[in-house]
Structures are given as structure tokens and as C-alpha cells.
């Protein structure tokens, strides 16, 4: 069974952490993954850096720019990850923009993911209709779960369509914003969390954007299966490098 699906069956709130591959230094990828697993994180999103990350705020943008400057490429990331399954069993998701995947070759990319033991992909700018028409069969053939996003502006009808197309979890963007733009939640989020919870979707939801500490983690997971931390972890890496990952994770839960 796919590791993501297996993890989602556990009776606990999921803590997922995002980091940009190649940041803060080029060869930190494996150590970050190992430390996150050892410190009890449930799921990891490995960011494939892109020159033009248009859904990201300044923190993740800066980490992408730095990672590319450090020399990170899709080929190199796959090289760094080739033995990762010898040391970790945590579910791994690659997250990035569609263009680098397209240049690598979508089929070759999926095949490489399967060889390494990647469990899923998040490609925010690969739209639902194109995925279903052109890539769904391919992703499934290589055992990859494709994760879709919803936002407070996503209509009920579209949430249903996305739920139907999903088979893992739904990435629930907490507010209309780029990553790292807002901290914490207000009444708008409560309404949104309740609306989605009331829809009884077949896929669990994991909330991303705006989660940075124990309080926001608790708020986000009160109605959902889990939460994702991205920008706050990147900031931690910027300040501390790869030291003290345990401390960072420990203060979330």
C-alpha cells in the first residue's frame, strides 16, 4: 500500500513539513529528511526549486533562488535521493511547479519517482482537467498519488470534483494567499474549515499556509486530519542551518 494512504489510516493528527531541496546548502537534502523522520514528523514534502514560483511568498521564493544558485536540479535531486529508502520509511512527496517536470519528461519523472520510492506529487499549476486527461493513468501506473489544492474560494461543486479525483488527501490552503503571507487564523478560516468538514469528503484534508507553531497547528487540525508547515521551517533553516530540527518539530506538538 502507498505509504501516504497507510499513514493517513493512523489515528493521529498528521504533521507534514515542507522544505526546498538544495537549501540552505546543496547537500542538506538527505540529512533534513532523516532528522524530520527521527523527530516524529509524519510526512515530508520535498520542494523542487523553480525560477518563477508564482504561488509562493518571499520566504520560499528566496529559498528556491538560493537552492538554484547552489546548483540544485531535478537530476541532482534524484541522485541525492537514490538511496533514501535504505534509511527512511516516512511518506515522501515531491512538490514543485509543472515546468521542470515537463522538461524532465513527465513519464521519465514518474518512473524515477517510483524507483526512488516517492509516494506522491503536488504540482499546484497542473490543473485538474489536464491531469485527468493526460497524466492520471501515468501517475497511477507508477504508484504516485497526486494531491490537489482547495482554497476558501473553491466552490462546493469544485471541491466535490477535486475530492472525486483525489486518492490520498486534499491540500487545504487556509486562506487566499501566497505561502507565508499570513500568520494565524481568523473567523474566515473557522467558517471555511467548518464548511469543508460538513461536506464529509471521502479524502481527509491537510491544511497548509499560515501554520507556524503549536497554536496554529492545533487550530488547523481541530477540523482536519493534519497540517503542513513550510515557510516557518524554511525560516528555521535559514537561521539555524540543519541543526536543531528536533527542537523545531518539538515545539509544534
Amino acid at each position, binding site marked *: 500500500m502507498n505509504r501516504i494512504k497507510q499513514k493517513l489510516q493512523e489515528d493521529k493528527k498528521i504533521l507534514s513539513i515542507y522544505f526546498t531541496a538544495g537549501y540552505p546548502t546543496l547537500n542538506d537534502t538527505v540529512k533534513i529528511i532523516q532528522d524530520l523522520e527521527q523527530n516524529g514528523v509524519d510526512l515530508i514534502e520535498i520542494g523542487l526549486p*523553480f*525560477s518563477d514560483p508564482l504561488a509562493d*511568498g518571499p520566504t520560499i521564493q528566496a529559498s528556491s533562488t538560493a537552492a538554484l544558485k547552489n546548483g540544485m536540479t531535478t537530476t541532482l535531486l534524484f541522485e541525492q535521493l537514490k538511496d533514501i529508502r535504505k534509511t527512511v520509511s516516512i511518506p515522501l512527496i515531491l512538490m514543485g511547479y*509543472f*515546468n521542470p517536470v515537463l*522538461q524532465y519528461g513527465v513519464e521519465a519523472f514518474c518512473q524515477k519517482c517510483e524507483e526512488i520510492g516517492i509516494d506522491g506529487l503536488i504540482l499546484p*499549476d497542473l490543473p485538474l482537467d489536464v491531469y485527468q486527461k493526460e497524466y492520471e493513468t501515468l501517475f497511477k501506473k507508477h504508484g504516485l498519488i497526486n494531491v490537489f489544492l482547495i482554497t476558501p*474560494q473553491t466552490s462546493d461543486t469544485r471541491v466535490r470534483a477535486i475530492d472525486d479525483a483525489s486518492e490520498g488527501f486534499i491540500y487545504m490552503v487556509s486562506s*487566499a494567499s501566497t505561502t507565508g*503571507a499570513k500568520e494565524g487564523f481568523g473567523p474566515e478560516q473557522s467558517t471555511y474549515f467548518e464548511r469543508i468538514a460538513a461536506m464529509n469528503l471521502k479524502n481527509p484534508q491537510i491544511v497548509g499556509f499560515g501554520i507556524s507553531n503549536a497554536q496554529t497547528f492545533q487550530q488547523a487540525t481541530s477540523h482536519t486530519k493534519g497540517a503542513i508547515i513550510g515557510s516557518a521551517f524554511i525560516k528555521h533553516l535559514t537561521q539555524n542551518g540543519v541543526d536543531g530540527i528536533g527542537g523545531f518539530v518539538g515545539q509544534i506538538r
Partner: protein
Amino acid sequence: MSYHADERGYYGEFGGAFIPEMLYPNCEELRQNYLRIMAEPSFQEEFHQLLKDYVGRPTPLYFAERLSKKYNTKIYLKREDLCHTGAHKVNNTIGQILMAKRLGKHRIIAETGAGQHGVATATVCALMGIECVVYMGEIDIARQAPNVARMKMLGAEVRPATSGSKTLKDATNEAIRDWINNPVDTHYIIGSVVGPHPYPDMVARFQSVISEEIKSQLLEKEGRENPDFVVACVGGGSNAAGAFYHFLDTPEVGIIAVEAAGKGIHSGESAATSALGKVGIIHGSKTLLMQTSDGQITEPYSISAGLDYPGVGPLHAHLYTSGRGEFISITDDEAMKAGLDLCKLEGIIPAIESSHALAIFKERKFAEDDVVVVNLSGRGDKDLQNYIDYFKL
């Protein structure tokens, strides 16, 4: 075969809307409404009234006699340089501001490279009394000071884009990020036939007034609606889309798109997207774009600030790959000389973008009785410093 967008915004394999879910409601609202709004008689009336009284349309179709004599063919210039604000850009911003009003938006954002689209957007926002924020790369702000001043005088706020390469593509990223963060009250006025569906089609429709006028003006002057060739420069490709629009499905009209070769196609400093680009996704559109083998978008170069976009509109990518359009690339040197040539022969100082289109007469022969319409997309006032530096005037 039609060369217009299908209902999903595809031109052959190009186009579509490759956008994150955060942008879906914004683009969907526009997609569901743009054709209906544009078809409303009151919209058409207001649009054409403003084009006439405010922009100064129709712009003349001018027979360039001395230029024609020099190249031994019949050359007409479509004088978009005589539009208010100095270029064709305003045709689109007038259309989009009226669209934004009908969609109930009260805040406008835009991206700009050299500042021409920023000025055209700031202009229509002043006209309508709507708040305007223009994103502009930090590097472009430094090298285009007069246009920054114009936008400020017109009441717009100019926000520097400090990410990535700090130029047009990054200004576009910033504008898109702003739209993600302000999905309800804001309309994003994209300046070219780029971006996610429905932008390429909507902008082409607003610019199509150019070819609509060419047809009726040519009928008056030559007794026929269709020229043998239409020539336009292509960066993102909005002036070209407008000049080609009503001729796309008329195969007897030759379509010539002129790209900026910069210092030469293989010099490493070029903006010739059709020659150097590969299929990919930029700003929500599947098209040809300049990128590394790893899929990172690269920074193009041209002496003309309006042509250095790393992608090209999906319509043009389709014209190129289908063979419907003839694509020619012109270097900085060739363009600058052609610009000066037009000054001396016709008393018109063209924008450097438009000079690229004019430079094809040295590259390509036309028959003596061919009617060739060149879209003179903008005037050269904004480029004076470049001309001064280049020719040591």
C-alpha cells in the same frame, strides 16, 4: 483549421490555464463573463467611443512612399504610434478597465517591463478614478525613470519587483501573487497576449481593432481588404495579435512575426523565443519559452525593453509551429539602423520594438506589387536615450 483560441483557450497544443487553485476563481470569473460582457451593445459603444475620442482612433494607414521606393514594394504603416500614450497598449487597457468595471472590481494591478503597459494602465485608471498598482522589476525601474515618473503623475503606485531577475517576468510573478492575495476586489490587467486563458484571447480581441481598421482602410486605398503581408514585432505579441487577428484564417495573407535576436540568436544574448524556446509553462500558459534544460526560465536580452519576454503568446507559438506565420529575427544593430532609416525617409521616429518589424526589408525581398502592411506599434520618444547612446547623437 482555425488559428483562434478554442473554448478552453487552446491554440493547437498551446495555451490553456496552468494555474494554481488559488487563481482558479479569479480566472474562472473572467472566463465565464468576458465574451458575454464584450458582446453587450453598451460595452461595445463605450469601448469604441473611448477608442475614438480618447485614444484617437482610427489610427492612419499611411502609404510610406519613400520607404516603398527604397525597397521596391508597396509599404503601408499602421500608425499605432499615434495612439494616446504612444503605443497600441492602450487599446487593451481601455477594454480591460471597462471589463473590470462591469465585473465590479475597484482595484487594478498590472505588470510592466519598459513601462509602456504600466503607463497605459495608469492612464485608464486615472480616467476611471480606480486605484492602480503597477509592478515593475527593480532593474527596469532604474533604467526607465521617465515612465516611472509618468505612472506616478497619473496617480499609480509603482511597486518594485525584487525577486528573481528583477525584470518583466518577475514583475508578472508579483502581479500574479498580488492577485492570489486579493482575489475578490481586484482585476489584473495583463499587458500582452500571454498568461492563462482567457487572457490571450481577450487581449487579442481588444487589439483586433488594429486589423479591423487595416481592412477598411486598405479597401479605401487599394480597392481590396487583404494585404499580401502583415508584419509586426513580437515580444509577448499583443500588437502582432491585433494586426494579424482578422487575417489569421485568410491563408492568402502572409503573416510575418519579427522577434528580437538581440546580439544574435546564438550569442547567448537574445530574445528570439521561437528559435530558442522549448514547449513549457510560463505565467499559466503552455507555450514556447526560453529555459534551461532543467526547466528554469531564463532571462532574455534585447536592446528593446518591450521585446525581452522569455515566452511568447500561445497564439504565436501556434503560428510558428503550424507554419502559418513566418518568423524572422532581427538583431539590435539591424533594428537600430532601420529605425534611423524611417526617421530620415518618412519623418517618423519609431519605438525600437517597431524598428525590428521595419528591419525585415533588408532581410527579405517582396515583389514590386506586393502590399505589405507594417504595424508601427509605438513611437520612439521613450527610446530617445537608447538612440542617443547608440548613434552617439
